[in-house]
């Protein structure tokens, strides 16, 4: 096997996997707190990308300001989504809130078609992210170098927040026992809003980086990445942040490697996630880093 080809594919895999990881974190954080699969997460990802697109193209903002605005607004959108679609159902049966999540997902996608138009849009190239960098015979797009760095930094910050800060302690308390957390004078709603906010802004960052890598936007662009990253979160052990990153990376690697070295399977690329899911869950039902416990969905 050609070594430079291998390194080339490893670089691709690392950047795709890190991107998956970024989105998977949002699923896992929300699940960890609420035991809810936020089916609209992939659509939040799409929204982040579109807001950045319009901020650059319509509002003529410099790209960095546009990205910051998009990430911030998407974070707020996630908080609003929880308020409107999930909070009123918190004491209802789990199935109601799940249906609401699926409904929210369809609503955002279809509103996207109406508001943004169904025809794909292309993001103007941003030189910082769109430069080809050469390492010997390996060449990668600069955005592919940024993504793993972002993901690594974010993972470190999140692990610090969850493990070392009072907010993180409150998050862990809410995730184990909501009523007991209330008895500690923890404002449970605030903790949940914070979680949705962080998850959504990471989805926005993921959406923006995605369009830097694959510079086309359409209102359904979040569906497949959303599904795959949910799977990545389950593979890693849903509820576990490091697990989501591991699951995302693993999925990215397997996708890239299979397509690169078994090109006859290229058509099955999107199915690989499901195969991996089945294999991992058969070996370890709680996911790679998940705690063994009865999960109630």
């Amino acid at each position: 096997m050609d070594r430079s080809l291998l390194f080339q594919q490893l670089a691709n895999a690392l950047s795709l996997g890190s991107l998956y990881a970024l989105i998977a974190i949002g699923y896992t954080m929300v699940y960890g707190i609420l035991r809810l699969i936020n089916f609209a997460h992939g659509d939040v990802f799409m929204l982040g990308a579109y807001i950045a697109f319009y901020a650059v193209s319509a509002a003529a903002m410099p790209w960095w300001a546009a990205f910051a605005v998009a990430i911030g607004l998407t974070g707020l959108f996630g908080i609003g989504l929880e308020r409107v679609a999930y909070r009123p159902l918190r004491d209802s049966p789990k199935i109601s809130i799940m249906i609401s999540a699926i409904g929210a997902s369809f609503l955002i996608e279809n509103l996207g078609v109406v508001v943004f138009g169904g025809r794909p849009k292309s993001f103007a190239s941003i030189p910082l992210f769109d430069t080809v960098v050469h390492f010997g015979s390996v060449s990668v797009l600069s955005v592919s170098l940024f993504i793993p760095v972002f993901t690594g930094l974010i993972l470190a910050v999140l692990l610090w927040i969850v493990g070392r800060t009072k907010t993180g302690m409150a998050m862990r308390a809410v995730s184990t026992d909501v009523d007991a957390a209330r008895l500690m004078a923890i404002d449970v709603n605030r903790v949940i809003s914070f979680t949705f906010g962080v998850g959504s802004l990471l989805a926005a960052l993921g959406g923006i980086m995605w369009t830097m890598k694959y510079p086309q936007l359409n209102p359904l662009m979040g569906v497949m990445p959303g599904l795959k990253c949910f799977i990545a979160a389950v593979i890693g052990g849903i509820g576990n942040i490091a697990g989501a990153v591991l699951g995302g990376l693993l999925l990215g690697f397997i996708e890239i490697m299979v397509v690169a070295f078994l090109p006859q399977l290229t058509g099955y690329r999107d199915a690989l996630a499901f195969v991996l899911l089945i294999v991992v869950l058969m070996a370890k039902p709680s996911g790679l880093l998940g705690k063994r416990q009865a999960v109630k969905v």
Partner: protein
Amino acid sequence: MLAIEKLSVHYGGIHALQGIGFEVPDGKIVSLIGANGAGKSTTLKSIVGLVKPSSGTASWNGEALTGLPTKDIVERGVVLVPEGRRVFANLTVDENLTLGAYARKDKDGIAADRKRVFELFPRLDERKRQKAGTLSGGEQQMLAVGRALMSRPKLLMMDEPSLGLAPIVVKMIFGIVREINRTGVTVLLIEQNAKAALEIADRGYVLETGRITLQGSGAELLADDRVRKAYLGEAQ
């Protein structure tokens, strides 16, 4: 003073509390005893806002607690040690204590209270880096009490602290409750273990299927035939 007036709670069709009323005067220990399912936990949960009463009020020093979010009630010093301890199993002992003081900003006061908790329960000091889930039942109860003390309670409410514990541990916990009370903390104690609860109580109430059927000083109730028969397991 805690005052409960005509408090009613419904769970769907179940009328769990049927207009109960009682008082917990400042500085006293009041025990509420009753059989399993009588509505004891429901009483405490509705005082701290975990359960919404269908009518009636709980008020603390003249201010209505009913309708306030739990957080605001706890910040007023009305603190519950819940049934079954409910410590955060995957957090360390130290973190559990920190969460008890979650709403407080006075660093020095928090440090002093943590020291005091460790003096009351040296066992917790030895195990402070351990996950709470690895503690024994008795140690978890100590942690639950310690965690409540970290929120500087003015009224400490305890839901069946003796449940499932060895008699020697129960004795120790009740001793601590007395000691806490001596520092000026008002105590509302809920127990199936009527003897222990009435022995330390200034005043007691008997709750039966959502109604208060008897009341009196702790000593009076201990001497009462009906209490002896129904709750102290004495044949006549």
